[in-house]
Every structure is written in C-alpha cells, then in structure tokens.
C-alpha cells in the first residue's frame, strides 16, 4: 500500500450550466428542429444523461445552408479582410476568457481528463483562432496568387475525440479565408460546439456565418449531399471518408478528409530510452488513445525490446485511470458504449490471434465506459491489432532488426497519417523520416500540435492538410 495515495482533487463543475435541451444554431439563433426530434447526450464517465440534443433532418440542414449562403453573399464576402480578422481575434479572446468553462464541459461530455482539456485541448483551440485571425488580411501571401477567393459555403463534419479542437481546426481557417460554415459536431459530443455558438453570439459574429446542426450520420449525409455546399471538410473514420468521396464524385464540391491512422512509433536502440518510454505512453494513452494519429504500433529494435518493455510496464503502473474531473487523472472514460465494444472486440481478437496481453493492476469504475491501458507483445504484421485502427488505449508491440526493416514495417499499412522516430542520431532520424510514408512525423516527441504546422495524411489517412499555410489552400481557390 502506497502511503502517498493522492486524495481526490476534483475540478468543480459549478462553472458550467447545462440546459435540459439544446436546439439547433441557425442564422445566429437557437431554433427548434423541424424534425421535432431530440436525442440524449451522456457523460461517459457515469453513463448518466447530461442533456438532450436536437436531431437535424434534411429540412433543418437546408435552412442552415440557406442561412450560410445568405450570410456569405450579403455580409461576409463584403467585409474587409481586416474586419473578418477582428471577429476571429474577438472569438479567440472570449475562448481564452471562458477556457475553464469549455474545459469542464468538454470533460463532462467527452470523458477526457480535465488535465488534457485544460492544458492541451482548449489552449490549442484559442491558439488556432489567434493564428488564423492573423492570416485573414494576409491571404495574398498564402502562395495562392494575389487574390485567392473563398469557396463560399463550407459543410464541416467533426469527430468526438477532440470536439472543440476539431471545431477550431475547421471553423477558424474557414472564417479567416472568407467562407461561411455549417458545422455538424459528433452526436456524442455536441455540447461544447453549442457553447461555441454562444461565443459567436457574444462576439457579435454576423448571423449565419456559423451554423451548427446537431445529429448523427443521417444529418451528416444530408449536409454532404446538399447542393448548396461548395466544399466538405471531414474528420472521422476512413469508412465514412470513403462514403463522402463517393457521394461527392461528379459534383463541383471540393473536399478535405482527415481520416484514420495506424501510426508506427519507431524506437531505435540508440534512443534516449526513458524519454522514448514517455513518448510511447504519450503516443498511445493520450486522450484514451482516441487519437487518429496515435502511436498505436510500437516498432522497437529487437536488441532493446526487453529494456524498453520493462521500463514501459513500470511507467504504465503509474498511470492514473479514473474520474476525468480529477486533476490527477491520466486516462479518463471511453467516449461511448459503441467505442468500448469495438476496443473490446479488437483486443479479444489480439488474444485469439496469439499476441500476449498485459495491463497494469487497475481498478475500473463500475459505472460508465472504461478500458485499462493495455499492451500486446508478440504481435506480427498479420494480426488484426497490427492493421486495424483500435482507437483506444491499446498498444501493439512489434520488433525490427534493421532500419530498413523498420521502414518496411512502418509503411506496410493502408494508412499514413503520422509516425514517430526515436534516436539520438540526427542523420538516422532524417534518413528514416525521408522514407516514411506519413503526413506528420515526430522526432523524439509525439502528439505535439501547433496551429502553424500542417496536419494530414498519406494514402487512406486522407486528402489535404489542415493548419499552417498549407491548410489555407483547402479553403481558397487560387486567383490573380
């Protein structure tokens, strides 16, 4: 028994007010859905209902798209670029002022630890708005000619793993480049997007520039297929990404897709081992492993495998799983019952295929959705857990003997979103990075994000880039 058990240190929830029911945000106002339907949103850490969310049908989506079109034609496209930038700066400042409120609400609705929503998600959200606010009147330096033009009305669909951060990645560049937006948050995590709608009102953003339609797959399909949409921006699963690509084929619609991943995290024998172990933990257990660019395949050089795994197991025994509102929690709740079932199914497949499963001693809370941090050793390339995206706190450990073998194994996947390289030898890092087929490559770190840095995938991990100067290209048409 450890004498230094940390007493509960709960973040207060008194800063947030959650309504019994949420309507759609269309043309600057909260309006009841034409569908008349609402669905529950729950706290995944308790399983209890937090509120009810409107389910937008195609009539609701149509209203939202029309509002966005009108706002684009009559207001937003007429505004000077500097004025557009001012609105973004104002939104960014309000997000900073209300950061604690957003962090607590995100943790309640998503299940992620307050340490991450407070220290990572929400600060990055504000940073994305500040960064893109600065671009608004400098677009002629984006490398797309002297007068690049917006597409018009953008339909954006975002996932549940980083609800506010993905909103920021989508909305900030769209507005900075002069587009108007219809956004659909994920059905399990709509609350912070709806709080963001309040921020748009508070900032005095013109009506219809940002519209938020809540709902599940059918709402997303209505948005994708609406003829009034000029561009689709989607982050989510590769399966849905393929559906979107199919349904917009033959239309004038542009698309950026940020899809799944099965990133290789390569540990060479000359790595700084202790920090590499930190990087493994950060790569796969950050945000419960609900990260498209998670380092879910550990490729460790065989001659240091024992040392790395021994240290990893010690480190994992210090991971604190539990109430996401506790400031000392490292791993929170799995976002939904459906996601938990998928993680359990793939983990069972890993055992059935002969990989060895290990988790540190870990008490899982009785209510809500939980999964202990888990590693599989003895995994080979043919195993499902080495090929399919698990999107949970589950690491597959594979080994390699030479740098060439590491590259071959790392690239042997339909995905290509991210990768990590750990070595104290600079030339080896550069050589490896040049051979890896992945959009984001981290050297001696993992899961680091910055609004100035483009993000996106190769192969089935997606089309286009988000963030940085490259990300602007997704929301602009080149023009002289």
């Amino acid at each position, binding site marked *: 028994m450890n004498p*230094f058990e*940390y*007493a509960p240190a709960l973040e207060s929830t008194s800063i947030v007010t959650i309504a019994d029911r949420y309507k759609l945000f269309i043309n600057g106002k909260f309006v009841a859905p034409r569908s008349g339907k609402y669905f529950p949103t729950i706290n995944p850490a308790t399983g209890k209902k937090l509120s009810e969310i409107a389910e937008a049908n195609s009539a609701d989506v149509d209203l939202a798209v029309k509002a966005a079109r009108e706002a684009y034609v009559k207001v937003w496209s007429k505004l000077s670029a500097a004025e557009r930038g001012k609105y973004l700066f104002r939104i960014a400042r309000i997000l900073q002022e209300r950061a604690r409120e957003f962090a607590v609400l995100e943790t309640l609705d998503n299940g992620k630890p307050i340490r991450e929503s407070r220290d990572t998600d929400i600060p990055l959200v504000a940073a994305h708005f500040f960064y893109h606010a600065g671009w608004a009147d400098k677009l002629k330096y984006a490398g797309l000619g002297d007068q690049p033009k917006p597409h018009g009305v953008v339909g954006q669909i975002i996932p549940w793993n980083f609800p506010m951060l993905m909103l920021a990645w989508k909305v900030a560049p769209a507005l900075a480049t002069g587009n108007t937006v219809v956004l659909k948050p994920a059905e399990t995590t709509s609350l912070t997007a709806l709080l963001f709608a309040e921020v748009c009102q508070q900032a005095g953003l013109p009506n219809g520039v940002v519209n938020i339609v809540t709902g599940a797959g059918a709402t997303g399909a209505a948005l994708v297929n609406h003829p009034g949409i000029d561009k689709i921006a989607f982050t989510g699963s590769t399966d849905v990404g393929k559906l979107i690509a199919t349904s917009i084929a033959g239309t004038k619609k542009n698309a950026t897709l940020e899809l799944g991943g099965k990133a290789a995290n390569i540990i060479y024998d000359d790595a700084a081992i*202790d920090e590499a172990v930190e*990087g493994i933990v950060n790569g796969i257990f950050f945000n419960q492993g609900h990260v498209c660019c998670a380092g879910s395949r550990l490729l460790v050089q065989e001659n240091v495998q024992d040392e790395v795994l021994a240290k990893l197991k010690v480190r994992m025994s210090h991971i604190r799983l539990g109430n996401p509102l506790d400031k000392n929690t490292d791993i929170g709740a799995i976002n939904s019952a459906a996601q938990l079932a998928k993680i359990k199914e793939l983990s069972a497949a890993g055992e059935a295929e002969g990989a060895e499963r290990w988790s540190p001693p870990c008490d899982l809370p009785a209510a809500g959705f939980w999964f202990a941090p888990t590693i599989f050793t003895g995994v080979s390339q043919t195993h499902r857990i080495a090929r399919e995206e698990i999107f949970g706190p589950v690491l597959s450990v594979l080994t390699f003997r030479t740098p060439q073998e590491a590259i071959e194994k790392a690239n042997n996947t339909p995905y290509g979103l991210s990768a990590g390289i750990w070595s104290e030898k600079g030339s080896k890092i550069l050589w490896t990075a040049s051979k890896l087929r992945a959009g984001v490559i981290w050297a*001696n770190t993992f899961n680091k994000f910055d609004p100035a840095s483009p993000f996106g995938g190769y192969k089935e991990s997606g089309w286009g880039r988000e963030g940085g100067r490259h990300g602007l290209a997704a929301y602009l048409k080149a023009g002289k």
Partner: protein
Amino acid sequence: MIIDSSESSLKAFLQTLPRVDEVGVNARAAMLATRSIKTTSKAWAIDTAISMVDLTTLEGADTPGKVRAICAKAVRPDATDLSVPSVGAVCVYNDMVHIARTTLDQIGGKAIPVAAVATAFPSGRASFAVKAQDTKDAINAGAAEIDMVIDRGAFLSGRYGEVFDEIVKIKELCGDKAHLKVILETGELVTLDNVRKASYLAMLAGADFIKTSTGKVAPAATAPVVLVMLEAVRDYFAMTKFRIGVKPAGGIRNTKDAIKQLVLVNEVAGPEWLTPQLFRIGASALLNDLLLQRMKMRDGYYASPSYVTLD
C-alpha cells in the same frame, strides 16, 4: 560486478548509458508538476517532507549560537505542536559538527544525525590529503553523514577515474561510522547527460546518497535534474538490488516545491523511496513554510510568519 576500477572500464560503462533527451525530461517534469495534492495526501506529504529536511546552515558567519539554535529547531520544529516530526538531519560545516552533536544529544535529539559537508566544500579544489583530513575531522567530531563534493574539474575533463577513486577513498574513511552523500553540483555539470553519468559514477563508487548541489551554485535542485537522478537510482536498483538515496538541495523554499519533489519520487523512483532513509531535502527556509502550511491545514487559516521561529 559492473566494472573493475580501471579508467577504461568506467568510461566504457558510462558510454553504455542511454542519452537523456532534455526536452522530454522537461515535459515529464512539467506534467508531474500539475499533480494536485490535497487534504489527507497533503497532510501526509507535509509531515513526510519535514522528516526529510536536512536542516542546513552553511555560512561563513555560522557561530556556535546559530548552530545550537537550528539544532533546537531540528528536534522540535514547532514548539507549540509536539505532533510535528523532527527533521531528517542537521547539516553544518566540519568545525560545527561537535557543537551540533553535543547540542542535539543534550536536548533530546540523539536520533537526529549530524551531516557534515566535506572534501573542501563547496568547490572541492584542494589536495586529496586536505579532503581526507576534512572528512576524518568531521567523523571524529561525531558526523554520521558526510556530504562530499565531487571534483567537477576532473569530471568535465573526462578524468572519471579520478572522480571515482576519490569517492571510493572517502567512502573507506566513512566506513561504518558515516553514510556518504555525494554532491554532483549539477549546476556546474550543466547537461542532463552529465547528471546521469555522474550519478552512476557516484553510485558505483559507493555513495549511499547522490545529492544535487552545494546550494552555492545556481541552478540547483531543478525538477528535471532530480528526475534524472531518481531514474538513476531506480535503474541502479534494478541492476544491483541496492537502493541509493537522493538528496535535492538548493532552491526548494516552499511547501509546493517540496510536494512536487515528493510527487517526483513517488512516480519516478517509486514509493519505496518515500522515506528519510532514501530521500532528503537540503534546505533552511523550507521548514518554516512547511510549518505554516501545516498550521493552515490544522486551523483552516494562514498564520502570520511571526508564529514560526526564525531558527
């Protein structure tokens, strides 16, 4: 046996140690600094930290009166509350050891060891004969702990054998009469790679404790430095089954910093190190802040600093 005592085997061994990535260590230390220690765990941490303080006075202006005063404080840190534990040790210069020892014995502090800084502290720039005599004097005067400094000049010029041999010889002088703490003076070693190498050098040469700093050089006991040293003692235990202690010293002035140190110990070396036998904090001003925080937990409000004694 990990090494023989030759310079070449030492060099070869130190070369096998994994490098330290400073950015990664800083990030880990910053993350652990966000741990929020409240209520019962805070109360435990404050009392544990008090029991780990090496209450220190290392001034040219030290006098017998000053040393007697800190001895009284060491035995009963808060004279109004006898539930406050005594500190881990009293740490003084060589010539004050006798006064400290006799004072402690007279006032009920027999169990509190006197630690003496030795080997031409703080610079270590003297002949070995002088360093040896310094150590013998301290032990003869009743020091149960010797805080020696390594020869940083020898270390930085790659003469690891010299550094090693000096520690071995001082350890021999300590025998079973005194524990040996080896001060790395990490502020002069500068890089975390050097901190890791020097930690192993000291442990292999027979240190009972590795200590960050003299307190005379800044930066001293920063969280990244302590983290790397805690990793070293953890890994050395895995290798040899010997638990070596760690003593951060210098710059830890308030309760928050002390609790952050205990979090580092807990989550890097492990809870086995959460004892004064394996973790000490070299400090002077820290003790009063711990006492004020303890009063706050007891009474529910902050007391004026006038309610704790100066020394």
